[in-house]
C-alpha cells in the first residue's frame, strides 16, 4: 500500500516537473516574434541555401540570401525596373547596344570597410567564367565577348571584354545586344566579390556567416545550418538611411503546415502556404500572391508518329479546361496559360510581354478539339488513337494534375491514355533520353525576358526535348538575338510565340503562382517574379 502511494507520488511529481519545465522561457527565439514597431522581421523559409557564393549559386534560396547581404550595380524595384544601386546611374550603352559603361557611386564599401571597386566586378565575373569554378549560370556572363571561349576552356581570361577602366568605371562589351541586360545586372550572379576575401576563404567561400562579405542592405550575422540565418542592418550600406529593418531572422521550415502554425502563433511574419490552407485565408488581409515566371506545359514527343501531326497536338491541348485545372486541381493562385511566356515577363521594351502578344494559346473547346483529333487521325490514316503514356513527377500535386488531364482527354476526346508518375529525377532522365510519349514539365525563367522561354525551342536546342524543328521559328529567334531596336525585337518574339502556339510542340497549361501569408504590419516587402523569393531592402514594420 505504501509502495503504491510512493509510486503515485513519483508519477505526479514527474508530470508536474515536465509541465513546469514547459512554462519556463528560454532560447533567443521564443514564441511571440516581433512587437509593435520594433523593426524586426521573422520569415519562414522552405530550404537551407547551398553555398552563398554568387559565382556558384543555382537555387533561389541562395539568390535570395545573397541579394539581402550584397548588391549589384542595380537593384530591381517593385515593378521589376532596374534602379541604380552600387552604380551611380543607368549605364551608357553604345548605339549598337553592345558596349556598356557604368560609373560606381562614391564612397561605397563592403561591411568590413573595404572599398568596392570596379575591378571587384571584373574579378567576380571572370571567376564565374573560369572553367574551374564550374558555374552553372556562367552562360549568362558568357554573353560578354570572349566569355564563352574562356568558360569553355578555349580562351583566356584577359580576352574577356570586361574591364575596370579605373576604380570607379566598369566597361564591358556583349557578343550580341541584350535588351534586358541592365535588369540582369541586378541578378546576384553579377554582384561584386572582394578578391582578397574570396582568396582567403578558398573553397569555404560562402559556406558560413564569417565566410561571406557583401555591400548590401544587410549583414549576415549568423547562419546555423538547417535552422536559421540572421541578418542585421548594414550601417556601412550606401543607402542605409532608407533601410528600416534592424534584424531579419530567416527560419528554415521545410513543412508548409509547420510554417502556417508558426505564422498563426506569431513566431513568423511571412510564410508560404499550400493549397489546403488557401480557402481559410483567401479573403483575409494576410493573403499575398507571389507571381512567378514559371509555366507548366505538356511536351509532345515528335518521335512518336501520332504526335508528329499538328492537329493532334492542338487537339490534345485544346481539350483540357485550363480554368478548371487551376480552380479545381491546383487552387493555389496559379493562372490558366494564354501562351508559353508567363504573365509578368517583360518584353524588353518596357511592357509586359503577355499584353504585347495577347492571348495566343487556343481557348478550351471540347468540340473543336474532337474535330481536330478526327482530322488528324484521318491525315495519318489511323482509325483510333493509340494508348500513349503520360509521364509526370510523382508528387501529390503532379499526380492530381495527371489524373485531371487524363480524365479530360477521356471525357472530351474519348481517348484513353496511361498515367505514368515517376520520381522527379527519373522524369528528367527520361525526358532527356526521349523515353516518353507525353511529359508534364515545368520551365522557370533564368532572366526576365521572353527569350528565356522561347530560345529553348530552336532546332537541336539543349532543352528542346521534344525534337520539334521549324525553320521559320529558328529564323525569328536568331533575328531577335541580334535586333537592337527594342520594339522590333519584341515583335519578332511575339511572332515566334505565335508559331509555337500554332504548331503546339508543347501545350502550356498554367502560369504558376505561390501564395504567402504576410502579417499586415509588414510593409514594403517585395515578392519578385523571378530570382529571389523576397526583397527586403524597402521593408519596414508598421
Amino acid at each position, binding site marked *: 500500500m*505504501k*509502495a*503504491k502511494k*510512493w*509510486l*503515485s507520488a*513519483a*508519477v505526479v511529481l*514527474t*508530470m508536474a516537473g*515536465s509541465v513546469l*519545465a*514547459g*512554462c*519556463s*522561457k*528560454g*532560447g*533567443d*527565439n*521564443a*514564441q511571440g516574434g516581433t512587437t509593435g514597431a520594433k523593426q524586426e522581421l521573422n520569415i519562414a523559409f522552405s530550404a*537551407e541555401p*547551398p*553555398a552563398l*557564393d554568387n559565382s*556558384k549559386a*543555382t*537555387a533561389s534560396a541562395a539568390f535570395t540570401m545573397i541579394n539581402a547581404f550584397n548588391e549589384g550595380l542595380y537593384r530591381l524595384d517593385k515593378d521589376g525596373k532596374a534602379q541604380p544601386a552600387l552604380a551611380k546611374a543607368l549605364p551608357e550603352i553604345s548605339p549598337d547596344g553592345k558596349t556598356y559603361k557604368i560609373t560606381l557611386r562614391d564612397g561605397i564599401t563592403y561591411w568590413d570597410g573595404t572599398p568596392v571597386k570596379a575591378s571587384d566586378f571584373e574579378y567576380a565575373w571572370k571567376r564565374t567564367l573560369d572553367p574551374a569554378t*564550374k558555374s*552553372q549560370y556562367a552562360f549568362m556572363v558568357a554573353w560578354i565577348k570572349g566569355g564563352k571561349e574562356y568558360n569553355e576552356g578555349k580562351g583566356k581570361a584577359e580576352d574577356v571584354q570586361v574591364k575596370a577602366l579605373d576604380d570607379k568605371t566598369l566597361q564591358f562589351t556583349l557578343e550580341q545586344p541584350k535588351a534586358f541586360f541592365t535588369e540582369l545586372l541586378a541578378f546576384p550572379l553579377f554582384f561584386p566579390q572582394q578578391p582578397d576575401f574570396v582568396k582567403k576563404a578558398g*573553397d*569555404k567561400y*560562402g*559556406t558560413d556567416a564569417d565566410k561571406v562579405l557583401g555591400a548590401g542592405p544587410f549583414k549576415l550575422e549568423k547562419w*546555423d*545550418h*538547417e*535552422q536559421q540565418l540572421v541578418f542585421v542592418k548594414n550601417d556601412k550600406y550606401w543607402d542605409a538611411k532608407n533601410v528600416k529593418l534592424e534584424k531579419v531572422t530567416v*527560419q*528554415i*521550415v*521545410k*513543412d508548409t*503546415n*509547420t510554417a502556417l*502554425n*508558426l505564422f*498563426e*502563433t506569431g*513566431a513568423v511574419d511571412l510564410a508560404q502556404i499550400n493549397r489546403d490552407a488557401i480557402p481559410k485565408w483567401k479573403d483575409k488581409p494576410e493573403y499575398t500572391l507571389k507571381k512567378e515566371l514559371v509555366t507548366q506545359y505538356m511536351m509532345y514527343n515528335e518521335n512518336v508518329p501520332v504526335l508528329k501531326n499538328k492537329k493532334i497536338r492542338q487537339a490534345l491541348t485544346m481539350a483540357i479546361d485550363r480554368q478548371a485545372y487551376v480552380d479545381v486541381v491546383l487552387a493555389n493562385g496559379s493562372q490558366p496559360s494564354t501562351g508559353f511566356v508567363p504573365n509578368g515577363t517583360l518584353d524588353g521594351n518596357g511592357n509586359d510581354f503577355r499584353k504585347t502578344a495577347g492571348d495566343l494559346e487556343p481557348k478550351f473547346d471540347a468540340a473543336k478539339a474532337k474535330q481536330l483529333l478526327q482530322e488528324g487521325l484521318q491525315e495519318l490514316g489511323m482509325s483510333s488513337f493509340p494508348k500513349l503514356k503520360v509521364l509526370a513527377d510523382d508528387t501529390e500535386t503532379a499526380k492530381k494534375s495527371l489524373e485531371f488531364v487524363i480524365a479530360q482527354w477521356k471525357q472530351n476526346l474519348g481517348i484513353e491514355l496511361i498515367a505514368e508518375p*515517376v*520520381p*522527379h*529525377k527519373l522524369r*528528367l*532522365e*527520361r525526358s*532527356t533520353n526521349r523515353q516518353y510519349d507525353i511529359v508534364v514539365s515545368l520551365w522557370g525563367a533564368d532572366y526576365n525576358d521572353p527569350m528565356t522561354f522561347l530560345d529553348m525551342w530552336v532546332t537541336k536546342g*539543349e532543352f528542346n526535348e521534344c525534337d520539334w524543328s521549324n525553320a521559320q521559328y529558328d529564323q525569328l529567334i536568331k533575328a531577335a538575338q541580334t535586333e537592337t531596336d527594342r520594339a522590333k525585337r519584341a515583335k519578332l518574339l511575339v511572332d515566334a510565340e505565335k508559331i509555337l502556339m500554332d504548331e503546339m510542340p508543347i501545350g502550356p497549361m498554367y502560369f504558376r503562382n505561390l501564395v504567402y501569408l504576410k502579417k499586415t504590419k509588414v510593409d514594403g516587402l517585395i515578392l519578385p517574379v523571378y530570382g529571389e523569393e523576397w526583397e527586403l531592402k524597402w521593408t519596414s514594420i508598421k
Partner: protein
Amino acid sequence: MLRYVLRRFFYMLVTIWLIVTVTFVMMHNLPGDPFENSERMTEQQKTILKQQYGLDKPLWEQYVQYLGDVAKGDLGVSFAFPTRKVTEIIAQGFPNSLELGIWSISLAVIFGLTLGILASLNHGKALDYIAMFTAVLGVSIPSFVLAPLLSYFVGVKLEWLPAGLWYGPEHRILPSIALSFYTLAIVARMMRTSMLDVLHQDYIKTAKSKGLSQFSIVLKHTVRNAILPVVTILGPIFVNIITGTLVVEQVFSIPGLGKHFVQSVYSNDYTMIAGLTIFYSVILIVIMFLTDIVYGIIDPRIRLAKGRG
C-alpha cells in the same frame, strides 16, 4: 572476454562492409544523376561534373575508391551542398536528433515503467484499465498523426507551447512527447506483463512470508527482475527513435538528420545516402553491443555464460 570483443568487432566490420556495398550498388541504380538543379544543366556541364566526382569511371573503380575513402573516415562531399562534407552535415544535424531521441526515450522509460508498474500493482482495477487504455492509444496513434495534432492544438490553439522550431527547453517538449508516445506504450505494456509474471513467482511469495515490506519487494525483487525484457528492447528502440525522427523533425522544424535521409534518396545525393547509412549502421551495431553489456550487468548469469563462450 577479449576474444569475444574482438570477434564481435570483426563481425561489425563485415556487417558495415556489406551494408556499404549493398547501398553503393542500389544507389547507383537510382534513375537520373545526382546533381542539384540538373534540369537546367547542359549535357556538357553534366559531363564536367561527372568527371569532377569520378562518376565517369567504371562502377568497380568508383567502389574501390569509395571504400578507401571511407576507411580513412572521409565520407565525401554532399552533392546537394557541394561545399559541405557529409561528416560536417552529420556533425551539425545528429546532435539535435540525438537530443530529441534522449528526451523521448527518457519520457518513454520514466512514464512507461511507471504506468506498467502501477497497472500491474493494481491488476484488474480502474488504474490498470486506464494505464492499458493509454498504452493502446500510444500504439495506435503514430507519431506522424500525433505530432501535427500536438503542434496545432497545444501550439496554435492553446498557445501553451511553441508550435515548432528548436531553440529553448520549451521547444523540446512537444516533439519529445510526440516521439515518445509509441515507445512509452510498448514499455508500459511490456513492464506490466513482466511484472505480473514476476509477482506470481515463488520467491515473491517467500519474500512476502518473510515479512519484507511491500516497497522492498516491489523495488528489489519484482522491478529488478521484471525490467530485464524491457532493457533488451531499449537498444533497438533507441536506434529506432533517433533514426525515425523524420516526421517529428519535419513537423516541428527541428534541424536534425531525419530529413536528409529521405531527401538524399530523392535527390540521388550518393555520398549523403551512403554516409548516413554507414553512420546509422555503426550506431545500431554499437548500441546493440552496449545493450548486451548492460544486460550482463543487470543479470550476472548472462555475463558468466558469455565469459565461458
